[in-house]
């Protein structure tokens, strides 16, 4: 998943910088807030958590879902078969079902916990799960081409036939994916056509959220605005583009029942306003990643500093090379660029120190990361020598594309340009607009560029989401933007992906071998690992100085679980 960075942040960064300057010479805000910034208004039945986004909540329909913002409410409205362990982010644990799997990794049997109901009282059973999976893998009736994440379930037997049939999912358990069978209302069997170690991860994605078949059938394309699930909250009201209100689901079965009366999600609130509103106590939670200008404000304000949390996320920032033509089809030239860029300086200057120099495609939190691989050190002399060895004529003229919609991106690109200038590479910068979650020019098969600034954050915490999605042949001209490839790497990753989850140790070994190849071949310029950050009001946590005691479970893809937050109000 590409990080959804914010349109018009260039503008807002300027505004934040301005307000920073002004606030540093101003006094304290007027009333409305207490000393610790808590809101003074309390609705009946407990406090309200209010958060805000710079963009729209695009959908609540798992079959239309692609974006991060929508995950905030969706995680609260829906349950999935399995989920992530609150204590250890990347471990899969039962949600509505426990499971058995055969040693070959081909047959999963899910035992759905009895008595689970949707928020409207309808029962959640194996039929509902099958319907939800059939619906998200069907080509009809949502959108032109089926669900964006339907492909994630292509390992299930009969996926191709069902997807190409163009038929609609049926709530009676008939038809649909041949590999998904209702044994009885509490038992569901899923047969895979090939073992897939990360299969359970795909079942924890929001595309596998379990919807109420009755309601989904009733509203069809408009299900998004009438969404019904079995999660801790339910949809109360939604003025699209403005705000959504969730209230606790009275039928919620899980152990972590919401401790608040309402969850308000405000849409389209600019970064600047979010910070002001947080400082005034109107917002209780501001999700990151914060821009450098915002973070600078956090550092200079004692209240914000106290409310700031680093919340993981496994984000990678890198430069992809266009390996389809010289000079970057030559590993020596790619290595030279890796040596020529001072990543630590970028981390210091661009992110205010919120990053770690990257050594390989996988971030440290993902099994398969090899701690013995060292980052390319900053060594311009070595870079020059490698360029000479590769027979590159200097000065070398190249074009670098980057999304020019934030000040941080622009400054990163300029810094790379300056550093490459030192070794005789003239970079002409071409800013491009970011479209939602991707950059159109990246996908252009004609690749009118040599270097592309890009980033990625995990869909799920498995090496497959990085190594296969970003560096395999199947992802050419899409998520493998530079079309880098290596036959051994490809073999290793394909093999690791087709092993059952029970052979995780062997997978990790294969991934580590693949990592070494990508590192040595300099598949990219490895810039830095980043993370998400958040601002959380003190009343939402027991001890402001103990992130471990936050009581805020953050999903591996970094959406907060508001039902798990401790409330002291």
């Amino acid at each position, binding site marked *: 998943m590409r990080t959804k960075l914010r349109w018009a942040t260039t503008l807002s960064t300027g505004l934040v910088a301005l*307000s920073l300057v002004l606030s540093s010479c101003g006094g304290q805000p*007027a009333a409305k807030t207490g000393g610790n910034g808590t809101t003074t208004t309390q609705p009946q039945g407990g406090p309200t958590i209010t958060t805000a986004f710079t963009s729209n909540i695009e959908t609540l329909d798992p079959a239309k879902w692609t974006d991060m913002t929508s995950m905030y409410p969706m995680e609260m409205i829906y349950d999935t078969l399995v989920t992530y362990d609150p204590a250890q982010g990347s471990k899969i644990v039962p949600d509505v079902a426990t499971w058995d799997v055969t040693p070959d990794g081909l047959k999963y049997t899910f035992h759905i916990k009895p008595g689970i109901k949707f928020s409207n009282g309808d029962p959640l059973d194996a039929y509902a799960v099958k319907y939800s999976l059939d619906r998200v893998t069907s080509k009809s009736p949502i*959108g032109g081409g089926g669900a964006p994440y339907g492909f994630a379930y292509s390992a299930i037997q009969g996926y191709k036939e069902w997807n190409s049939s163009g038929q609609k999912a049926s709530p009676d358990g008939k038809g649909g994916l041949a590999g998904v069978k209702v044994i009885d209302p509490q038992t569901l069997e899923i047969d895979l056509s090939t073992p897939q170690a990360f299969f359970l991860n795909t079942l924890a994605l929001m595309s596998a959220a379990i919807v109420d078949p009755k309601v989904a059938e009733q509203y069809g394309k408009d299900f998004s605005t009438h969404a019904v699930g079995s999660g801790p909250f339910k949809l109360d009201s939604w003025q699209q583009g403005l705000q959504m209100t969730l209230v606790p689901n009275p039928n919620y079965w899980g152990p972590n029942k919401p401790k608040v009366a309402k969850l308000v999600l405000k849409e389209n609130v600019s970064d600047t306003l979010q910070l002001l509103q947080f400082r005034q106590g109107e917002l209780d939670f501001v999700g990151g990643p914060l821009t450098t200008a915002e973070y600078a404000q956090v550092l200079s304000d004692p209240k914000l500093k106290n409310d700031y949390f680093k919340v993981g996320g496994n984000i990678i920032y890198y430069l992809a090379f266009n390996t389809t033509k010289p000079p970057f089809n030559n590993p020596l030239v790619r290595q030279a660029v890796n040596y020529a860029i001072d990543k630590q300086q970028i981390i210091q200057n661009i992110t205010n120190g919120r990053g770690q120099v990257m050594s390989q495609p996988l971030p440290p939190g993902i099994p398969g990361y090899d701690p013995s691989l060292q980052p390319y050190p900053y060594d311009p002399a070595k870079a020059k020598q490698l360029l000479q060895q590769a027979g590159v004529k200097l000065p070398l003229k190249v074009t670098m594309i980057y999304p020019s919609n934030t000040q941080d991106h622009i400054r990163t690109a300029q810094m790379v340009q300056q550093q490459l200038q030192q070794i005789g590479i003239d970079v002409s910068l071409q800013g491009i607009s970011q479209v939602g979650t991707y950059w159109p020019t990246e996908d252009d098969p004609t690749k009118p560029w040599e270097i592309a600034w890009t980033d990625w954050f995990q869909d799920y915490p498995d090496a497959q989401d990085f190594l296969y999605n970003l560096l395999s042949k199947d992802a050419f001209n899409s998520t493998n933007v530079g079309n880098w490839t290596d036959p051994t790497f490809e073999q290793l990753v394909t093999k690791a992906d087709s092993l059952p989850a029970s052979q995780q140790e062997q997978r990790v070994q294969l991934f580590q071998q693949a990592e070494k190849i990508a590192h040595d071949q300099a598949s990219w310029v490895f810039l830095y690992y980043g993370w998400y950050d958040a601002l959380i009001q003190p009343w939402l946590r027991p001890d402001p100085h103990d992130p471990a005691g936050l009581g805020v479970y953050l999903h591996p893809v970094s959406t907060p679980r508001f039902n798990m937050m401790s409330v002291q109000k």
Partner: protein
Amino acid sequence: MIQYILRRLVWTVVTIAAIIAVTFLVTYAIPSDPARVIAGPHATPETLASIRAALGLDKPLLLRLVLYFGQVLHGDLGYDWVMQQPVLSMILQALPATVYLAVAAVACELLIAIPIGVVAAVRRNSWIDQVTRTASLVGVALPVYWVGSLLLLYLGFYAGLFPLGGFSAPGVVLPALSVGLTGAAVYVRILRSSMLEVMRLDYVRTARAKGLAERIVIWRHIFRNALIPVVTYLGMDLGYLLGGLVVTEYVFSWPGLGLLLNHAIGNVDGALIMGLTMFSASAIVVMNLVVDIVYAFLDPRISYA
């Protein structure tokens, strides 16, 4: 008169059609793939192809333009690419907020501009005139997002007098004021020069010679007749503001057409960009038409023969 209005109406339709054609061609000239916008970065080529087919993107551009005209004539602006909602209903939903803000903004502009403009003209070359002329020059030059941010920070955050953005009745004050402060300058300059011109005319001298009170001369004889260029500009201004206060609405998170357009551009959401551009262009064209007709009432000498 009626013939004139009919002629203008025909030209209005032609202008809007031309705007649609140009916007359509420009929007689709952007190297972006709507199918990707809809399906996200993971989408398979088959998914992309079927979305393209469903949206008719596999047809030649000119044919699509003709089909789009057909749609528009039926009042159908299509579905937006990201949210997959009818564009027309999205526009209609956002419209009231923009109308509310635009009217409040124009009111602010006039409330600020009229007294200043009149005083500047009447006390021509006095220190008041010099100060207001300089101030209006500064006003024209001030970016609205800067003024907006200052107002938010001082009147909203520190003083706590107004809400920090968002849609509400008191929430309109700061965005309207920031448009008012920056936009009033233009009105001041127009009104001042127009009044100075009128002041030189014979009938003003006659009015004074008749012994009318200066107040009556200024407000009834000079001001009213000096209003024509102000009304012209007001029409254009209102049309422009209705088209979306893109920056202002962004700064204040005001859920109108401007914020919608911000969003549409960010996502290169062609259907929504088309709809919004068409709407704002039409607003300007229609307001111009209205202004021309209103002239007749303000100044009976204008002939429509």
